[in-house]
């Protein structure tokens, strides 16, 4: 068994309770994130119902290759994150596996951001930024892209926070400042990462599939 006394924190009397509380807390926080992204998606939905044609035309201008590649990257990163969490929770010592999976997760997260960066550059070159030089004529297309930049931006901020959290675990774990085995912080980080992934799974059809489905 791990020596968990070093990880025991105020106000907990025993470590398993502290672990449970960490998991409980992150689930409550995830509920607030669901409402956060939910409000954004509701805004998108209302605007799309009002401007179906314009949204379809605008959606066709998105780069579905970048979008699909990013989806694959993010889904894989969730796999490696889940592996890291499972390995950390196991009673055997899987330190190298945990670190390796965390590293892969962070790398895939960074890859997502890099691809997104290329995609943003292309969008700017194609004048898909709302403003006076906007590429599409339909009223409502600017609305689509206004929401596109905002929602993907907010998602990217969340992903960046996730990468920082994972990197923190890697660094502190590698330097043995914290013990990764049976550490509730690993599962908390994993749950947060999965949320960011699930949000993307909802975003993908909203951004890349309008106007392309039929």
């Amino acid at each position: 068994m791990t020596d968990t006394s070093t990880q025991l924190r105020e106000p907990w009397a025993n470590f398993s309770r502290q672990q449970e509380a960490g998991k409980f807390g992150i689930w409550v926080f995830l509920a607030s994130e669901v409402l956060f992204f939910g409000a954004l998606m509701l805004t998108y939905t209302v605007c799309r119902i009002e401007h179906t044609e314009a949204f379809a035309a605008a959606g066709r201008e998105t780069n579905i290759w970048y979008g699909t590649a990013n989806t694959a990257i993010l889904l894989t990163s969730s796999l490696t994150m889940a592996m890291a969490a499972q390995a950390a929770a196991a009673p055997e010592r899987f330190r190298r596996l945990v670190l390796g999976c965390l590293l892969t997760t962070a790398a895939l997260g960074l890859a997502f951001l890099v691809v997104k960066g290329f995609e943003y550059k292309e969008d700017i070159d194609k004048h898909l930024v709302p403003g006076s030089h906007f590429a599409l004529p339909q009223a409502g297309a600017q609305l689509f892209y206004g929401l596109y930049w905002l929602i993907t931006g907010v998602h990217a901020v969340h992903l960046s926070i996730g990468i920082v959290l994972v990197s923190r675990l890697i660094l502190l774990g590698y330097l043995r400042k914290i013990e990764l085995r049976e550490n509730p912080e690993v599962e908390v980080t994993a749950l947060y990462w999965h949320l960011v992934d699930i949000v993307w799974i909802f975003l993908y059809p909203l951004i890349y599939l309008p106007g392309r489905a039929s």
Partner: protein
Amino acid sequence: MNSIFSLPEATTHAADVDNIFYLLLVLSGATAAVVFGAILVLAVRYHRGSAAKRGPLPEIVSREFEIGWTTATLFAFLFLFWWASSADLSRFSAPANALEIHVVAKQWMWKTQHANGAREINALHIPVDRPVRLSMSSQDVIHSFFIPAFRVKQDVLPGRDTDVWFQATKTGVFPLLCAEYCGTDHSMMRGRIVVMRQEDFANWLSQQPEGDDLAHEGAKLFVAQGCSGCHAASSNVHAPRLAGLYGRVVQLADGREVKADEAYIRDSILLPKRDVVAGFEPIMPSFSGLLDDGEIQSLTAYIRSLAHEKQSD
């Protein structure tokens, strides 16, 4: 001019509103009296050291008692909801013979226009005992058209028409105020509603400078902006004919049916790709940014005036 103690009831529905208010006042007063009274009586009777009898609570006070007063409160409130709402539902839509007035709000003034073209700034003359329907829009931010003596209030929005109707029952001058905060001079965005006897109103109207009435103005815009290029009977372009359109049910390309009312006409001018008529291509350009709200109201009035023409094709 309102007095400091009472507000005139100057429309057909004002008395209904006041009656609901008075009923609620009586019920609230009674409830407050019961609650405050009970607290006072209990506080005095059971203050520490008093001789009043303590001991276990009486048998009657039990779970059933609580359920009882909860249910009674629930039914009382449901009754209030039903009573208040049924008074409101009858006001749902304006009578067909209502006098049409267009209102445009902008920071920080009201512009009103009668059907014959007469315009007013921060004032509106209307006849007594005749339903009046206001069709309103804003040129900038959200305002709210508020006539306290009429118990009338309706937000005025940019990019959309809102409407409200009422029938004045008293002659006189009644204040008009803006009731949605709209910037620096929100509190100065006030006006006068002048209610006149019907003959006086007719005289007044005939003496107003004959601005082109809205429909005539709309007819001129129809040509000047190029609408007639496609929509006139002589055009080669396959575009819906507008004679007799207003008020008709229209079949759209995506299968829906809509009524051709003011909102539909406005959307067709500003967002023509949205509700394309069945059997037509979505080739109409948008006039968003090219026409202001006043011009759209004129065009709408013109299209309405075509309602009485027979379809010619």
